[in-house]
């Protein structure tokens, strides 16, 4: 099938339906963007003022000047990148081990990992909170990053990917005198880059958007991530910081996500289509 044929095959009603769908999805975004470039004072009386000029970038200037928002952005970046790096390292090593190494209780352990997929976060959040409190990990970066590293999905995903790589390559490398580490690092790991990209993007997005655990673990605003920080701003009942400022914060928070989506769209689409493993 050629790349253009799906588009050529679109009928009028389908196109109309897609346009309506796109409009429904885009309207809140455009509305948020418009509100963010209006002064708080102009929106105080009627938010409909967003539809007409004058527009201003004052709200964005205020964000950049606000020490806390920058701090939250930095926190989100540290936590999301830390979690992503940790998940990739651990999942790759565990996936290689489960797919390629022989060790006692390998199958039972893998089953144990799979069980992790069936346990919702809600079920463990209280004991985790108590454990982290005992260890004094709340209000710290390790406290925000560590829970994200325990997910089973990455291990499962990477194990399946390693299993799909022909064993001939391992054997060729062994005959080429490669050690296990060299086999992993020089031969197999480079072949998993598409899977790493997919897993990395999803881990980053999930971590960036995570709200619940940072809300529990970070109780001082210095350790808020952007999601928790913005939510705390919304609880400002009198909206003294203003609707325009709030919307500018929302746009500001979604910019990194947007960049990730644009840069990694190929991997995201491939993962969605379920063809991540070749």
């Amino acid at each position: 099938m050629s790349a253009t044929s799906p588009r050529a095959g679109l009928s009028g009603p389908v196109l109309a339906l897609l346009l309506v769908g796109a409009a429904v999805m885009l309207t809140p975004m455009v509305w948020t963007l418009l509100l963010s470039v209006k002064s708080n004072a102009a929106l105080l009386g009627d938010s409909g003022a967003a539809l007409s000029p004058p527009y201003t970038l004052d709200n964005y200037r205020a964000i950049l000047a606000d020490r806390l928002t920058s701090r939250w952005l930095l926190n989100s970046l540290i936590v999301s990148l830390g979690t992503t790096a940790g998940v990739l390292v651990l999942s790759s090593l565990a996936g290689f081990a489960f797919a390629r190494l022989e060790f006692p209780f390998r199958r039972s352990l893998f089953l144990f990992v799979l069980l992790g997929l069936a346990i919702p976060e809600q079920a463990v959040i209280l004991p985790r909170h108590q454990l982290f409190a005992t260890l004094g990990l709340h209000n710290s970066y390790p406290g925000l990053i560590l829970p994200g590293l325990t997910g089973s999905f990455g291990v499962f995903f990477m194990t399946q990917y390693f299993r799909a790589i022909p064993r001939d390559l391992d054997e060729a490398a062994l005959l080429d005198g490669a050690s296990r580490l060299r086999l992993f690092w020089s031969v197999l790991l480079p072949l998993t880059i598409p899977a790493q990209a997919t897993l990395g993007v999803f881990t980053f997005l999930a971590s960036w958007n995570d709200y619940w655990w940072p809300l529990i673990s970070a109780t001082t605003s210095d350790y808020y991530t952007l999601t928790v920080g913005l939510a705390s701003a919304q609880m400002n009942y009198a909206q003294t910081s203003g609707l325009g400022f709030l919307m500018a914060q929302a746009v500001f928070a979604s910019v990194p996500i947007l960049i990730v989506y644009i840069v990694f769209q190929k991997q995201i689409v491939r993962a969605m289509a379920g063809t991540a493993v070749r």
Partner: protein
Amino acid sequence: MASLALKDVHKSYGDTLVLDRVSLEVAARELIAFLGPSGSGKSTLLRIIAGLETADGGEVWLEGRRIDALPPGDRGVAMVFQHYALYPHMTVRENMAFGLRNAGVPKPEIDARIAQAAHVLEIEAQLEKKPGQMSGGQRQRVAIGRAIVKQPKLFLLDEPLSNLDAALRTRTRVELAQLRQRVDAALIMVTHDQAEAMTLADRMVVLNERRIQQVGTPMDIYARPANAFVARFVGSPAMTLAPATVMPGNDRFARVRLAGGAEVMTRVPRNGLVDGAPVSLGLRPEHVSLAPAEAATLQAEVILVERLGDRTFVYACLADGLEMIAQDIGSSAVRVGDRVGLRIDGDAAHLFEADGTGRHADAAT
């Protein structure tokens, strides 16, 4: 001194025995083909020599050094895999350099060896390409190149031609024959294709049912198969094995009677054969010909005609249901359904005893 020696090598997977006390010696620079049907143990044997499988017992020696406990990379063997197993993310040059870098070979020497191998294999223009950008035949050459640069004492080739189309297969077969002239090492090739084995190998090792059935030169195995399995497995079309009984007599050579009553005088020495013992009369197609009724040993009905241009194979069914294959001239007029006379060349016939042991026409007479 033998280049490679296998002594009593055996291997089981759980309760399933896959190799039963295999012993073999391979001379320096010899090209050996392991030939056998699927499940005969030929690939397992190759993998045990390579170190990719561990034997349950027995010894593997290469040029005077016992290697069966060494890791694959330290054995001095190189292998060309059936599906090539080239590293897809590396260029051809990197593929060839990988093993040498692991062995600590200095870079100038790596470059020199790659340049030389690339020249011999005519892949100089492909060195910076990745395997995915190359054709099957080119990948095959790279796989061979990767083995050559290591300058191993023993080359192992696992079904080296099976992934190539017919034209490329013939060409690569010639190239493999040329390659062995250039390398100072023994070669072992696993194949289930007897044409490949017969055209390339100095000696063939026919395996079946976990054991070596026969070791010998291709013509020796074709002309004097050790048992009924080898007789039927080597040669295309396969040898006909007709049930028969040894007739009493004082002749030097055995005379047998086929189930249908026809008698055949062979050149197989009688000594040791018991009168009346059941045997199988082994006949290659070239030793059965079409003949007029008065000169024929047997009458049969033609059920299939295979025309190969220079000759024709005629599959004919005897009255007792036995199928026999005869060879006729290329322009044979015979057709399916014809009744034909078959003349058996008893001088070239083989006899197989009830346990399968082969007896052959006395070459000295």
